[in-house]
Protein backbone atom coordinates (compact mmCIF):
# COMPACT_ATOMS: atom_id res chain seq x y z
CA UNK A 1 0.00 0.00 0.00
CA UNK A 2 1.56 3.27 -1.15
CA UNK A 3 0.03 6.38 0.33
CA UNK A 4 0.65 9.90 -0.81
CA UNK A 5 -1.32 11.29 2.11
CA UNK A 6 -0.87 14.98 1.33
CA UNK A 7 -2.08 14.64 -2.28
CA UNK A 8 -5.77 15.31 -1.48
CA UNK A 9 -5.23 18.23 0.89
CA UNK A 10 -2.73 19.70 -1.61
CA UNK A 11 -5.11 19.18 -4.54
CA UNK A 12 -2.60 16.89 -6.32
CA UNK A 13 -2.65 13.30 -7.58
CA UNK A 14 0.06 10.81 -6.70
CA UNK A 15 3.16 10.95 -8.97
CA UNK A 16 2.62 8.60 -11.94
CA UNK A 17 6.27 7.87 -12.79
CA UNK A 18 6.80 6.62 -9.33
CA UNK A 19 3.93 4.13 -9.83
CA UNK A 20 5.66 2.72 -12.95
CA UNK A 21 8.97 2.41 -11.13
CA UNK A 22 7.37 0.49 -8.28
CA UNK A 23 5.45 -1.78 -10.69
CA UNK A 24 8.64 -2.67 -12.57
CA UNK A 25 10.31 -3.85 -9.35
CA UNK A 26 7.54 -5.58 -7.40
CA UNK A 27 6.27 -9.10 -8.02
CA UNK A 28 3.46 -8.82 -5.48
CA UNK A 29 0.27 -6.76 -5.73
CA UNK A 30 0.26 -3.15 -4.64
CA UNK A 31 -2.29 -0.45 -4.12
CA UNK A 32 -1.86 3.26 -4.69
CA UNK A 33 -3.63 6.01 -2.79
CA UNK A 34 -3.44 9.74 -3.09
CA UNK A 35 -5.74 12.30 -4.64
CA UNK A 36 -7.46 9.99 -7.16
CA UNK A 37 -10.56 11.99 -8.09
CA UNK A 38 -11.69 10.66 -11.45
CA UNK A 39 -12.01 7.44 -13.46
CA UNK A 40 -9.28 8.83 -15.75
CA UNK A 41 -6.87 9.31 -12.80
CA UNK A 42 -7.50 5.71 -11.73
CA UNK A 43 -7.15 4.32 -15.24
CA UNK A 44 -3.78 6.00 -15.67
CA UNK A 45 -2.48 4.61 -12.38
CA UNK A 46 -3.72 1.08 -13.13
CA UNK A 47 -2.16 1.25 -16.62
CA UNK A 48 1.14 2.18 -15.02
CA UNK A 49 1.02 -1.17 -13.20
CA UNK A 50 -0.79 -0.66 -9.89
CA UNK A 51 -3.18 -3.50 -9.00
CA UNK A 52 -5.65 -1.48 -6.98
CA UNK A 53 -6.40 2.11 -6.23
CA UNK A 54 -7.56 3.42 -2.90
CA UNK A 55 -9.70 6.49 -2.41
CA UNK A 56 -10.61 8.33 0.75
CA UNK A 57 -11.27 12.11 0.82
CA UNK A 58 -12.47 12.34 -2.83
CA UNK A 59 -15.05 9.60 -2.15
CA UNK A 60 -16.39 11.59 0.80
CA UNK A 61 -16.85 14.60 -1.47
CA UNK A 62 -18.35 12.48 -4.28
CA UNK A 63 -19.56 9.01 -3.21
CA UNK A 64 -20.62 8.32 -6.83
CA UNK A 65 -16.89 8.01 -7.62
CA UNK A 66 -16.89 4.61 -5.87
CA UNK A 67 -19.66 3.36 -8.17
CA UNK A 68 -18.00 4.80 -11.28
CA UNK A 69 -14.67 3.14 -10.46
CA UNK A 70 -16.29 -0.21 -9.57
CA UNK A 71 -18.27 -0.22 -12.81
CA UNK A 72 -15.24 0.56 -14.94
CA UNK A 73 -12.57 -1.61 -13.24
CA UNK A 74 -14.49 -4.03 -11.01
CA UNK A 75 -14.87 -3.91 -7.24
CA UNK A 76 -11.63 -5.84 -6.75
CA UNK A 77 -9.68 -2.72 -7.84
CA UNK A 78 -11.50 -0.29 -5.58
CA UNK A 79 -10.28 0.08 -2.02
CA UNK A 80 -11.94 2.58 0.27
CA UNK A 81 -9.75 4.15 2.93
CA UNK A 82 -11.61 5.42 5.97
CA UNK A 83 -10.10 7.53 8.74
CA UNK A 84 -12.28 7.04 11.77
CA UNK A 85 -12.18 8.49 15.27
CA UNK A 86 -14.23 7.36 18.24
CA UNK A 87 -16.56 9.85 19.89
CA UNK A 88 -18.06 8.29 22.97
CA UNK A 89 -19.83 5.14 21.83
CA UNK A 90 -19.85 5.90 18.09
CA UNK A 91 -17.29 6.53 15.37
CA UNK A 92 -16.97 9.42 12.96
CA UNK A 93 -15.25 9.81 9.61
CA UNK A 94 -12.52 12.42 9.07
CA UNK A 95 -11.11 13.72 5.82
CA UNK A 96 -7.89 15.28 4.54
CA UNK A 97 -6.12 13.63 7.45
CA UNK A 98 -2.76 13.93 5.69
CA UNK A 99 -2.52 17.62 6.57
CA UNK A 100 -2.97 18.85 10.15
CA UNK A 101 -4.26 22.22 8.84
CA UNK A 102 -6.93 20.81 6.54
CA UNK A 103 -8.11 17.80 8.51
CA UNK A 104 -11.82 17.96 9.23
CA UNK A 105 -14.56 15.87 10.76
CA UNK A 106 -17.29 14.98 8.30
CA UNK A 107 -20.98 14.61 9.11
CA UNK A 108 -20.76 10.86 8.47
CA UNK A 109 -20.79 8.06 11.00
CA UNK A 110 -18.25 5.36 10.20
CA UNK A 111 -20.79 2.52 10.27
CA UNK A 112 -23.14 4.31 7.84
CA UNK A 113 -20.32 5.27 5.50
CA UNK A 114 -18.96 1.71 5.37
CA UNK A 115 -22.40 0.35 4.52
CA UNK A 116 -23.00 2.98 1.85
CA UNK A 117 -19.56 2.45 0.30
CA UNK A 118 -20.08 -1.32 0.03
CA UNK A 119 -23.46 -0.77 -1.62
CA UNK A 120 -21.76 1.54 -4.13
CA UNK A 121 -19.22 -1.16 -4.99
CA UNK A 122 -16.15 -0.74 -2.78
CA UNK A 123 -14.30 -4.09 -2.87
CA UNK A 124 -12.14 -3.68 0.20
CA UNK A 125 -12.07 -1.36 3.20
CA UNK A 126 -8.98 -0.13 5.01
CA UNK A 127 -10.14 1.22 8.34
CA UNK A 128 -7.62 3.49 9.99
CA UNK A 129 -8.53 3.94 13.62
CA UNK A 130 -7.17 7.39 14.38
CA UNK A 131 -7.32 7.05 18.18
CA UNK A 132 -4.70 4.34 17.92
CA UNK A 133 -2.77 5.53 14.88
CA UNK A 134 0.95 6.04 15.47
CA UNK A 135 0.82 5.23 19.19
CA UNK A 136 1.73 1.53 18.93
CA UNK A 137 -0.70 0.50 21.66
CA UNK A 138 -2.46 -2.16 19.61
CA UNK A 139 -5.26 -2.06 17.07
CA UNK A 140 -8.68 -0.68 18.01
CA UNK A 141 -10.23 -4.10 18.53
CA UNK A 142 -13.66 -2.82 19.62
CA UNK A 143 -14.14 -0.59 16.60
CA UNK A 144 -12.73 -3.11 14.12
CA UNK A 145 -14.93 -5.91 15.46
CA UNK A 146 -18.02 -3.67 15.22
CA UNK A 147 -17.21 -2.64 11.64
CA UNK A 148 -16.30 -6.19 10.60
CA UNK A 149 -19.86 -7.24 11.51
CA UNK A 150 -21.13 -4.82 8.87
CA UNK A 151 -18.55 -5.69 6.24
CA UNK A 152 -19.17 -8.22 3.46
CA UNK A 153 -15.91 -7.27 1.72
CA UNK A 154 -12.38 -7.75 3.10
CA UNK A 155 -11.57 -5.40 5.97
CA UNK A 156 -7.99 -4.34 6.60
CA UNK A 157 -7.15 -3.09 10.08
CA UNK A 158 -4.93 -0.04 10.32
CA UNK A 159 -3.54 2.01 13.16
CA UNK A 160 -1.85 1.00 16.38
CA UNK A 161 0.39 -1.98 15.66
CA UNK A 162 3.23 -2.05 18.18
CA UNK A 163 4.06 -5.70 18.80
CA UNK A 164 3.69 -9.01 16.98
CA UNK A 165 1.05 -9.93 19.54
CA UNK A 166 -1.05 -6.98 18.32
CA UNK A 167 -1.25 -8.58 14.87
CA UNK A 168 -2.30 -11.95 16.29
CA UNK A 169 -4.95 -10.24 18.44
CA UNK A 170 -6.49 -8.26 15.61
CA UNK A 171 -6.88 -11.37 13.44
CA UNK A 172 -8.28 -13.50 16.28
CA UNK A 173 -10.56 -10.94 17.86
CA UNK A 174 -11.96 -9.00 14.91
CA UNK A 175 -11.93 -11.38 11.93
CA UNK A 176 -10.15 -8.74 9.83
CA UNK A 177 -8.75 -10.08 6.54
CA UNK A 178 -5.53 -8.12 6.79
CA UNK A 179 -3.59 -5.87 9.09
CA UNK A 180 -1.70 -2.82 7.88
CA UNK A 181 1.26 -1.31 9.67
CA UNK A 182 3.88 1.21 8.72
CA UNK A 183 6.00 2.62 11.52
CA UNK A 184 6.93 -0.71 13.16
CA UNK A 185 8.19 -1.98 9.80
CA UNK A 186 9.89 1.24 8.73
CA UNK A 187 11.74 1.51 12.04
CA UNK A 188 12.79 -2.15 11.79
CA UNK A 189 11.29 -2.95 15.20
CA UNK A 190 9.37 -5.82 13.56
CA UNK A 191 10.61 -7.53 10.40
CA UNK A 192 8.02 -8.95 8.03
CA UNK A 193 9.54 -12.47 7.84
CA UNK A 194 9.67 -12.68 11.66
CA UNK A 195 6.06 -11.53 11.91
CA UNK A 196 4.86 -14.06 9.31
CA UNK A 197 6.57 -16.93 11.13
CA UNK A 198 5.13 -15.72 14.43
CA UNK A 199 1.58 -15.67 12.98
CA UNK A 200 2.07 -19.02 11.28
CA UNK A 201 3.17 -20.54 14.63
CA UNK A 202 0.07 -18.97 16.21
CA UNK A 203 -2.10 -20.90 13.70
CA UNK A 204 -3.08 -17.84 11.71
CA UNK A 205 -3.05 -18.54 7.98
CA UNK A 206 -0.28 -16.59 6.32
CA UNK A 207 1.85 -17.09 3.22
CA UNK A 208 5.44 -17.60 4.42
Amino acid at each position, binding site marked *: MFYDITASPDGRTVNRNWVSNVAALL*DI*PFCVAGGIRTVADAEDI*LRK*GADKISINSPALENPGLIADLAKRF*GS*QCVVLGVDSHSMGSSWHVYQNTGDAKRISRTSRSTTEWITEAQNLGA*GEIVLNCMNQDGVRNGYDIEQLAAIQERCHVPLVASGGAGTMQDFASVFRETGA*SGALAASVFHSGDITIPDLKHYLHDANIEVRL
Partner: protein
Amino acid sequence: MSGARVAIVDSGGANIASLTYALDRLGIESKLTRDAQTIRNASHVILPGVGAAADAMQRLNSNNLSKVITELGQPVLGICLGMQLFAKASEEETTECLGVIPAMAEKLQGSPQMPVPNMGWCQVHQSGSHELFAGIENNSYFYFVHSFALPVGEYTLAQAEHSQPFTAVLAQGNFFATQFHPERSATVGSQLLSNFAGLRA
Protein backbone atom coordinates in the same frame (compact mmCIF):
# COMPACT_ATOMS: atom_id res chain seq x y z
CA MET B 1 16.89 -16.59 -21.92
CA SER B 2 14.46 -19.23 -23.21
CA GLY B 3 14.47 -17.59 -26.64
CA ALA B 4 10.70 -17.21 -26.36
CA ARG B 5 8.98 -14.34 -28.17
CA VAL B 6 5.74 -13.82 -26.31
CA ALA B 7 2.75 -12.02 -27.77
CA ILE B 8 0.49 -10.58 -25.06
CA VAL B 9 -2.99 -10.21 -26.54
CA ASP B 10 -4.25 -6.70 -25.80
CA SER B 11 -7.71 -7.53 -24.50
CA GLY B 12 -8.15 -4.03 -23.08
CA GLY B 13 -7.58 -4.79 -19.40
CA ALA B 14 -6.21 -1.86 -17.47
CA ASN B 15 -3.34 -3.64 -15.74
CA ILE B 16 -1.33 -5.43 -18.36
CA ALA B 17 1.78 -3.47 -17.32
CA SER B 18 2.49 -5.81 -14.41
CA LEU B 19 2.62 -8.80 -16.79
CA THR B 20 5.03 -7.01 -19.13
CA TYR B 21 7.24 -6.07 -16.19
CA ALA B 22 7.23 -9.65 -14.88
CA LEU B 23 8.40 -10.98 -18.26
CA ASP B 24 11.02 -8.20 -18.43
CA ARG B 25 12.39 -9.26 -15.05
CA LEU B 26 12.74 -12.80 -16.40
CA GLY B 27 14.50 -11.55 -19.53
CA ILE B 28 11.65 -12.84 -21.73
CA GLU B 29 10.90 -10.76 -24.82
CA SER B 30 7.23 -9.76 -25.09
CA LYS B 31 5.00 -7.54 -27.17
CA LEU B 32 1.53 -6.24 -26.37
CA THR B 33 -0.52 -6.53 -29.55
CA ARG B 34 -3.89 -6.84 -31.29
CA ASP B 35 -2.33 -7.75 -34.61
CA ALA B 36 -3.34 -11.23 -35.83
CA GLN B 37 -0.07 -11.85 -37.69
CA THR B 38 2.10 -10.85 -34.70
CA ILE B 39 0.07 -13.22 -32.53
CA ARG B 40 0.35 -16.10 -35.02
CA ASN B 41 4.11 -15.60 -35.38
CA ALA B 42 4.89 -15.52 -31.66
CA SER B 43 6.49 -18.56 -30.03
CA HIS B 44 4.13 -18.22 -27.06
CA VAL B 45 0.88 -16.29 -26.57
CA ILE B 46 -0.57 -14.93 -23.34
CA LEU B 47 -4.21 -13.88 -23.03
CA PRO B 48 -4.38 -11.75 -19.90
CA GLY B 49 -7.47 -10.05 -18.66
CA VAL B 50 -8.97 -8.12 -15.83
CA GLY B 51 -12.46 -6.79 -16.09
CA ALA B 52 -15.69 -8.10 -17.49
CA ALA B 53 -16.00 -11.14 -19.78
CA ALA B 54 -18.51 -9.46 -22.10
CA ASP B 55 -16.24 -6.43 -22.66
CA ALA B 56 -13.20 -8.59 -23.28
CA MET B 57 -15.04 -10.90 -25.75
CA GLN B 58 -16.43 -7.88 -27.56
CA ARG B 59 -12.90 -6.47 -27.93
CA LEU B 60 -11.54 -9.80 -29.20
CA ASN B 61 -14.43 -10.18 -31.65
CA SER B 62 -14.18 -6.61 -32.92
CA ASN B 63 -10.50 -7.23 -33.72
CA ASN B 64 -11.37 -10.63 -35.30
CA LEU B 65 -9.08 -12.29 -32.76
CA SER B 66 -11.41 -14.99 -31.41
CA LYS B 67 -10.80 -17.30 -34.36
CA VAL B 68 -7.09 -16.42 -34.45
CA ILE B 69 -6.67 -17.46 -30.82
CA THR B 70 -8.64 -20.70 -30.99
CA GLU B 71 -6.62 -21.82 -34.05
CA LEU B 72 -3.19 -21.21 -32.49
CA GLY B 73 -0.85 -24.21 -32.30
CA GLN B 74 1.88 -22.77 -30.03
CA PRO B 75 1.58 -22.73 -26.22
CA VAL B 76 -1.11 -20.25 -25.12
CA LEU B 77 -1.55 -19.11 -21.51
CA GLY B 78 -4.78 -17.55 -20.26
CA ILE B 79 -4.50 -15.56 -17.04
CA CYS B 80 -7.46 -14.86 -14.74
CA LEU B 81 -10.23 -13.55 -17.02
CA GLY B 82 -8.13 -14.98 -19.87
CA MET B 83 -8.76 -18.42 -18.38
CA GLN B 84 -12.49 -17.81 -18.19
CA LEU B 85 -12.49 -16.69 -21.82
CA PHE B 86 -11.23 -20.18 -22.76
CA ALA B 87 -14.53 -21.61 -21.47
CA LYS B 88 -17.60 -22.22 -23.65
CA ALA B 89 -19.41 -19.43 -21.89
CA SER B 90 -19.42 -17.40 -18.71
CA GLU B 91 -22.28 -16.91 -16.29
CA GLU B 92 -21.09 -13.29 -16.18
CA GLU B 93 -23.93 -11.70 -18.18
CA THR B 94 -24.20 -15.09 -19.98
CA THR B 95 -21.35 -14.31 -22.35
CA GLU B 96 -20.38 -16.70 -25.11
CA CYS B 97 -16.62 -17.30 -24.89
CA LEU B 98 -13.89 -18.97 -26.97
CA GLY B 99 -14.92 -22.57 -26.28
CA VAL B 100 -11.45 -24.08 -25.97
CA ILE B 101 -12.39 -25.71 -22.66
CA PRO B 102 -15.64 -27.69 -22.44
CA ALA B 103 -16.90 -25.94 -19.31
CA MET B 104 -18.75 -22.88 -18.13
CA ALA B 105 -17.23 -20.13 -15.93
CA GLU B 106 -19.40 -19.99 -12.82
CA LYS B 107 -19.96 -17.24 -10.28
CA LEU B 108 -18.26 -17.94 -6.94
CA GLN B 109 -20.71 -18.49 -4.09
CA GLY B 110 -20.02 -15.91 -1.42
CA SER B 111 -20.66 -16.00 2.30
CA PRO B 112 -19.75 -13.65 5.16
CA GLN B 113 -16.57 -15.71 5.75
CA MET B 114 -15.89 -16.09 2.04
CA PRO B 115 -16.42 -12.75 0.35
CA VAL B 116 -16.61 -12.39 -3.43
CA PRO B 117 -14.46 -11.28 -5.21
CA ASN B 118 -11.99 -13.82 -3.87
CA MET B 119 -8.97 -11.64 -3.31
CA GLY B 120 -5.67 -12.67 -1.89
CA TRP B 121 -3.21 -15.51 -1.52
CA CYS B 122 -4.64 -19.03 -1.79
CA GLN B 123 -2.92 -22.39 -1.73
CA VAL B 124 -2.83 -24.21 -5.05
CA HIS B 125 -3.02 -28.00 -4.92
CA GLN B 126 -1.37 -29.72 -7.87
CA SER B 127 -3.17 -32.84 -9.16
CA GLY B 128 0.08 -34.31 -10.50
CA SER B 129 3.42 -33.31 -11.90
CA HIS B 130 3.54 -31.07 -14.96
CA GLU B 131 6.23 -29.01 -16.68
CA LEU B 132 4.41 -25.84 -15.62
CA PHE B 133 5.05 -26.75 -11.97
CA ALA B 134 8.80 -27.44 -12.32
CA GLY B 135 10.54 -25.98 -9.28
CA ILE B 136 7.22 -25.06 -7.59
CA GLU B 137 6.36 -26.82 -4.37
CA ASN B 138 2.90 -28.35 -4.14
CA ASN B 139 0.43 -26.24 -2.09
CA SER B 140 2.31 -22.99 -2.76
CA TYR B 141 0.39 -19.75 -2.36
CA PHE B 142 -0.57 -17.72 -5.45
CA TYR B 143 -2.38 -14.39 -5.73
CA PHE B 144 -6.04 -14.46 -6.84
CA VAL B 145 -8.52 -11.72 -7.71
CA HIS B 146 -11.72 -13.09 -9.22
CA SER B 147 -15.49 -13.46 -8.93
CA PHE B 148 -15.92 -16.29 -11.46
CA ALA B 149 -14.08 -19.60 -11.88
CA LEU B 150 -14.09 -22.82 -13.88
CA PRO B 151 -15.25 -25.96 -12.08
CA VAL B 152 -12.84 -28.82 -11.57
CA GLY B 153 -12.77 -31.09 -14.65
CA GLU B 154 -10.59 -33.37 -16.74
CA TYR B 155 -8.62 -30.31 -17.88
CA THR B 156 -7.68 -29.38 -14.26
CA LEU B 157 -3.96 -29.48 -13.40
CA ALA B 158 -4.35 -27.84 -10.00
CA GLN B 159 -7.20 -26.65 -7.85
CA ALA B 160 -7.80 -24.12 -5.11
CA GLU B 161 -10.75 -23.58 -2.78
CA HIS B 162 -13.09 -20.75 -2.04
CA SER B 163 -16.57 -21.76 -0.92
CA GLN B 164 -15.97 -24.79 -3.13
CA PRO B 165 -13.02 -26.22 -5.09
CA PHE B 166 -12.34 -24.61 -8.46
CA THR B 167 -9.76 -24.93 -11.23
CA ALA B 168 -6.60 -22.94 -10.48
CA VAL B 169 -4.49 -24.26 -13.38
CA LEU B 170 -5.64 -26.09 -16.50
CA ALA B 171 -4.29 -27.62 -19.67
CA GLN B 172 -6.08 -28.70 -22.82
CA GLY B 173 -3.72 -29.47 -25.72
CA ASN B 174 -1.59 -26.37 -26.25
CA PHE B 175 -3.91 -24.20 -24.13
CA PHE B 176 -2.90 -23.54 -20.52
CA ALA B 177 -4.41 -21.17 -18.00
CA THR B 178 -4.15 -19.95 -14.44
CA GLN B 179 -6.97 -18.42 -12.44
CA PHE B 180 -4.37 -16.64 -10.28
CA HIS B 181 -2.01 -13.89 -11.40
CA PRO B 182 1.48 -15.41 -11.83
CA GLU B 183 2.82 -11.91 -12.52
CA ARG B 184 1.78 -10.91 -8.99
CA SER B 185 2.54 -14.18 -7.19
CA ALA B 186 6.13 -13.53 -6.07
CA THR B 187 8.80 -16.17 -6.76
CA VAL B 188 6.49 -19.10 -7.53
CA GLY B 189 4.58 -16.95 -10.03
CA SER B 190 7.76 -15.94 -11.85
CA GLN B 191 8.80 -19.59 -11.93
CA LEU B 192 5.49 -20.55 -13.56
CA LEU B 193 5.85 -17.84 -16.23
CA SER B 194 9.39 -19.00 -16.87
CA ASN B 195 8.19 -22.63 -17.14
CA PHE B 196 5.48 -21.57 -19.61
CA ALA B 197 8.04 -19.74 -21.77
CA GLY B 198 10.06 -22.97 -21.79
CA LEU B 199 7.20 -25.10 -23.19
CA ARG B 200 7.66 -26.29 -26.76
CA ALA B 201 4.93 -26.19 -29.38
